[in-house]
């Protein structure tokens, strides 16, 4: 069915055209069409996908690339295209060059390809394409960060290629279906030993851990997310990080039974799943602590994005069907609220040109619509009940505690507390407090950006009030009635959550409170500056605010832990290897032809000795 081909390659084609016809109006229109087509076709194919997965095979260079649009790939592709569409609208406002359009849409094709491909060669090819395109977006603005990002992603990609090679050598096949069967049969055959299974697992884990931003490999995320066009980061962190998480699901699907057979269980949990759960938990805690202490708005959201993906990793690590349901729901909710946050940041940076909290403040009056969107994103990320964020987090809580993983569930509590903290810090830093005098003439964000924000804000509300819609589809993915209840209620064996009722209760509460408010006397409107200065103007040096170092006490409490940082460790490692390379070069190619002849003589000696042995 060539619909899959259309879904896959229209963004790339549109990107190339947009880059070729690099004129103000034309580029945007082509880009938007390119970004909208996948979503349109996915919606069109929805009824077909429900009955039977749509297949398509393509032979390139002696390899057959198989693509399949099944229920799961449809879900991931739909999430990615929704965020992609929002990104496209955002790019219309924030980017001026065809370069951005080309590589943004190329990474869009890469992600869709990763979700749809059914064999390792297609998977690896589109994975590399996605990494390369997102790297080029960062390369344009900052060399160091982009190189750090590319080196880590390429190490991940090559680890995956090594694993693919080993699998091909052992099972003689490259497509997922045959490998899955071969590995299941192999459990009894035992051609792949325990050591090799662990090697395969670690290789795949590194590859997908890098892209998802699991803790030891997350160092690229803050740099890469903040050093590129912010509306592209909505897609970068909203959809690209999902490729890493999709990979973890792939490990379950392909090697789950084999890993279980080889590694057995630990306290009743699958050992390999337990490892993933703990990686997720550590990512949540570490990333959230780092996010709280950031001074730059982009870095804050970058670490927060790493933390949120940690939730998904944790949910998949739990290993129970409910865990997968929670994780999959969080894939959607993270994509929409994080995408929304990045678009809000794009609007702020576009209008004020500043990225640090200390230079911003009091923008709520100046950019009311963006502030409203920001508030929705805040409520959703912090997990306040009527929002989608809460529904997925609730499912993850249920799964973790039901699966008797108490400490991991504890990590979620701490993580969501920290999430609440850094989200409010964002509110105070940007929207409230005294407004610096230079920001007096800040206007509202341009229309396309506002449109992009609404595209992502609406699902936050809709899926918040009616989470049953999403869990209904997830039940279809997991082929079982994992999460009961109708559109408005989520029912699991041990708990229920009636989203509609909670929302109505909140509305009732607000109504009563509103009545009490109206009962009181009329309120006189007083400008914010007329507070502790009792009327005289708040001059620059009297602009008392703690926007800078908002959480200094927390930093003091954690000062022992903050001494160690993965980032500095990797920088030293990179410098070390580069110096080693330099030393090797100086030593070996020292320019003296005599020493070169000695190398030849040594090889002759080796041959002689080897001949004698």
């Amino acid at each position: 069915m060539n619909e899959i081909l259309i879904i896959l390659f229209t963004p790339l084609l549109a990107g190339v055209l947009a880059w070729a016809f690099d004129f103000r109006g034309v580029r945007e229109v082509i880009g938007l069409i390119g970004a909208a087509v996948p979503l349109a076709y996915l919606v069109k194919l929805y009824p077909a996908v429900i009955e039977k997965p749509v297949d398509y095979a393509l032979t390139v260079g002696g390899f057959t690339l198989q693509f399949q649009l099944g229920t799961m790939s449809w879900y991931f592709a739909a999430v990615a295209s929704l965020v992609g569409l929002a990104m496209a609208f955002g790019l219309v406002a924030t980017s001026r060059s065809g370069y951005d359009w080309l590589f943004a849409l190329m990474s869009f094709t890469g992600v869709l390809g990763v979700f749809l491909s059914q064999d390792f060669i297609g998977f690896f090819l589109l994975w590399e394409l996605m990494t390369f395109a997102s790297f080029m977006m960062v390369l344009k603005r900052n060399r160091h960060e982009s190189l750090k990002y590319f080196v880590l992603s390429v190490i991940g990609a090559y680890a995956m290629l090594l694993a693919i090679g080993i699998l091909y050598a052992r099972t003689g096949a490259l497509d997922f279906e045959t490998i899955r069967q071969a590995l299941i049969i192999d459990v009894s055959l035992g051609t792949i030993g325990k050591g090799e299974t662990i090697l395969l697992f670690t290789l795949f884990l590194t590859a997908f851990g890098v892209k998802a931003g699991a803790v030891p490999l997350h160092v690229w995320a803050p740099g890469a997310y903040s050093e590129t066009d912010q509306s592209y980061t909505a897609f970068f962190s909203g959809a690209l990080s999902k490729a890493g998480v999709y990979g973890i699901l792939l490990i379950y699907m392909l090697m789950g039974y084999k890993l279980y057979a080889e590694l057995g269980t630990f306290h009743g949990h699958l050992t390999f799943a337990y490892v993933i759960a703990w990686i997720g938990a550590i990512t949540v805690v570490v990333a959230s602590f780092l996010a709280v202490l950031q001074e730059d708005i982009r870095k804050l959201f970058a670490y927060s994005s790493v933390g949120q993906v940690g939730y998904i990793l944790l949910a998949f690590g739990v290993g129970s069907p409910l865990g997968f349901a929670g994780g999959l729901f969080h894939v959607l909710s993270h994509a929409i609220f994080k995408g929304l946050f990045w678009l809000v940041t794009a609007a702020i940076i576009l209008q004020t040109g500043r990225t640090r909290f200390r230079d911003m403040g009091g923008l709520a009056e100046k950019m009311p619509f963006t502030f409203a969107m920001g508030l929705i994103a805040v409520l959703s990320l912090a997990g306040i009940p009527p929002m989608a964020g809460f529904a997925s987090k609730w499912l993850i809580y249920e799964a973790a505690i039901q699966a008797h993983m108490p400490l991991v569930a504890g990590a979620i509590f701490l993580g969501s507390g920290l999430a609440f903290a850094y989200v409010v810090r964002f509110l105070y830093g940007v929207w409230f407090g005294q407004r610096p005098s230079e920001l007096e003439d800040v206007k509202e964000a341009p229309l396309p950006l506002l449109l992009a924000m609404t595209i992502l804000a609406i699902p936050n509300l809709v899926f918040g009030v009616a989470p049953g819609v999403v869990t209904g589809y997830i039940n279809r993915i997991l082929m079982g009635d994992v999460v009961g209840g109708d559109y408005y209620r989520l029912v699991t064996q041990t708990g229920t959550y009636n989203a509609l009722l909670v929302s109505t209760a909140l509305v009732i509460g607000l109504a009563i409170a509103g009545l009490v408010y109206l009962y009181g006397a009329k309120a006189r409107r007083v400008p914010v500056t007329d507070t502790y200065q009792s009327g005289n103007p708040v001059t620059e040096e009297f602009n008392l605010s703690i926007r800078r170092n908002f959480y200094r006490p927390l930093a003091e409490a954690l000062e022992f832990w903050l001494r160690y940082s993965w980032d500095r460790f990797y920088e030293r490692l990179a410098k070390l290897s580069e110096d080693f390379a330099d030393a090797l070069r100086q030593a070996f190619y020292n320019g003296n032809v005599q020493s070169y002849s000695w190398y030849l003589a040594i090889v002759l000696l080796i041959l002689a000795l080897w001949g004698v042995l």
Partner: protein
Amino acid sequence: MISVYYFGAISLILIGLYAVLVKKNVLKMLIGLSIMETGVNLLLVSIGYISGRSAPILSEGIGPNQAVDPIPQALVLTAIVIGVATTAMALSVAIILYGKYGTLNVEEIRRLRG
């Protein structure tokens, strides 16, 4: 059928190699190189030698079974020509080197390195 000539040839090769590896002067290295080539040629010829037979020039008294195997000798002819060409090229390069560097000591000719 290891004949005594093989030892002569191999020792010549090793002497040539020794000269290339140890001598600091470029010309001495080139001389070592040509010694090595002569050693190789000697080895090539001695492989074709069958004791008790005469040179492979057919004349009335000497038929194909009285003569030594002619093919290695043909190979040696070409090898010698190649050796001459290489040495001539090397010496002309050595002249340029002396012109540009002012020295023939291998230790100093090290501008291209790393």
